[in-house]
């Protein structure tokens, strides 16, 4: 994580870094993602994962979910800087350890091997809402939705069952219960 402060200030104090999920509602217009991502790279903030899509076609609103790490001061800066962008409507921020928020990522695994191995792979994926999207004699494409670290673990564990390709999304987030972001 780059230090966002000036070179004049070699800080001797190291603040604890936390992982946060930042959700940004933006006008879905040309260049808006570049503005958001450029703000992160230009100020030396870190992006662990990114998910973006239009969520309201009528109002033309896209929702960007960014997973980032930083000290509380850096996280505050990220939020405040994002709010200054003209196409940004609102910004929400959650600590990854926040129990009242659901975080999910999706991954596609391609397993190539004999039936026995594929079966074992499917079994291993079962607790992560596994869906078989494609099936041949020699291969399977399995979709799972899970937390980042769970997908990390699975992509490691499935290697021995013939995992040849992984494709995964960034995290998306939503609050539990009837509460919505404001």
């Amino acid at each position: 994580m780059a230090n966002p402060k000036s070179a004049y200030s070699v800080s001797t104090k190291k603040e604890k870094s936390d992982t946060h999920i930042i959700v940004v509602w933006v006008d879905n217009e040309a260049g808006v993602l570049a503005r958001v991502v450029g703000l992160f790279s230009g100020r030396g903030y870190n992006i662990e994962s990114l998910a973006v899509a239009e969520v309201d076609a009528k109002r033309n609103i896209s929702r960007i979910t960014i997973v980032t790490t930083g000290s509380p001061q850096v996280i505050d800066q990220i939020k405040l800087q994002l709010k200054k962008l003209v196409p940004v409507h609102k910004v929400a921020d959650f600590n990854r350890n926040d129990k009242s928020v659901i975080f999910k990522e999706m991954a596609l695994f391609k397993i190539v091997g004999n039936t026995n191995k594929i079966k074992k792979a499917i079994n291993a994926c079962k607790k992560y809402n596994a869906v078989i999207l494609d099936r041949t004699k020699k291969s399977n494409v399995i979709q799972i939705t899970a937390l980042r670290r769970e997908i990390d673990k699975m992509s490691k564990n499935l290697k021995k069952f013939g995992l040849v390709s992984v494709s995964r999304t960034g995290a998306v987030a939503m609050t539990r219960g009837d509460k919505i972001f404001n």
Partner: protein
Amino acid sequence: MSKLFTGAEIVFKCLEDQGVDFIFGYPGGAVLPIYDELKNHSSIKHILVRHEQGAGHAAEGYARSSGKPGVVLVTSGPGATNVVTALTDAYMDSVPLVCISGQVPTHLIGTDAFQECDTTGITRPCTKHNWLVKDIKDLSKTLHEAFRVATTGRPGPVLVDIPKDIQFAKISYSKPKPVKKLNGKSINHFSQRDIDELIDLMNKSKRPIIYSGGGVINSGPEASDVLRELVQLTGFPITSTLQGLGAYPGDDNQFLGMLGMHGTYEANNAMHDCDLLINIGARFDDRITGKIDEFSPKSKKVHIDIDPSSINKIIKVDLSLVGDVKDVLKGINKTLKKKNFNFNKSNKHQISKWWEQIQKWRTKNSLHFNNSDETIKPQHAVQRLYELTKHKDTFVTTEVGQHQMWAAQHYKFNKPNRWMTSGGLGTMGYGLPAAVGVQIAHPKKLVIDIAGEASVLMTMQEMSTAVQYNLPIKIFILNNQYMGMVRQWQELLHEKNYSESYSEALPDFIKLAEAYGCKGIKAETPIELDEKIKEMVQFDGPVIFDCRVDPNENCFPMIPSGKPHNQMILGPSEKEENKITGKGKALV
């Protein structure tokens, strides 16, 4: 059916409705339709510069000295890339600019067409916002929105990129509707409770200091008035950043001078030892804070700023009031007067010891320099310039370097908007074109660019602009034949290895002035200095003044990199014991 206008006509209709009097620009293929339309709009005067960077800085000078947004018009490709330095400069120093750039026709975008570049991509990080207008229907809305974004909240530059086919396309035009707030980004977020808390802190404080910045200037002249009232009501000492100079009178006894890297001994020590620090419209820039860990260690910190992202960015504060400086200070003054009728008296007693300490620091006379009868000392030159022009309402711009710091230290400003300098970006070559813009905004006033010989050569071509429009700007060059600040750092940090910092093969500035069709004056000795300055001031027309100064003079006092406020180098004699070592050497 209502009348149809071309895109180029709509550009001017928008500028007229925004009350624009001047645009600074340079024509080219992709803006020809707009230039063609210029003749039909007599209320808008175009100032032809000699390089697009000059247009940007001139617009900055115009904006800073007048409080109105500066408007720039450039062509696609190189026109747009040349203005990037000025846009970045304006972004760093919060100057409202609206830059209109031409673009290749929409069907050619992305084909690497002649003079095509990704203008909105290039300028995205150096503007508050930018737009590529791909549909004539969006043009007027976008232009009015551009002015709104540039001038509201923390001001800054914006850019509108208009493809050539859009400039030809036709549509009807309607005047802008009254503005409504965008995305709920309102400005003032402070409450009476915050003000009460601040006043409580002020009541308790025994060693307070006010540190004001460019935000006071940007908030308008009224903000300077209320700041003066606040200082008078409280009896607190006040210091200012480079950008804030003029908001509070420079010759007032409660003013401690500028703070920071080349600030006064009393200002920096007061910042270090205070128990209450009130930041008004400044941003804890690294030139101000010095070493962060040891910045003002004993104080409660209060930050008043219009930009929420400035709060806690560098320095954590105990109390923040987000809002327009003018509105916040008005609220504070009102409460002070209403609630604490005796505050003034009792508090003055409470902080009398603090003032005694400040007086002790003042006796160090940190701006002192050893004057000479033989060579002109640059500080002396600025002091004489000040003494001989202070009776006039003088506007001063600068380039960047030693001369800039000497100007800030020795020229005393009494009014806001009289001091235009590139602080954040530190752009050499800013001062001359900025002076052009200032003179456009204030045709009858005395406008001086205190310059260095290296900086001024970066945008010297704008003398042609000054001559063309008969702008009597005075370019006062402190010519020490060095990139002085570079030389100073090489002396202090790199064992006097003056690598490439000597100004070799300088032009004869007198002849250069004559070649441009203006007046050249040279001063070489202290005896002739006053007469020559008077000659410059009295001359009705642009002047290049070649003031030959001591090439070896350094700018003191100085906080060496990596050191806190209370470890300043006061002058040449002190250099050795305060040597910059280790990590400090790597800093900028």
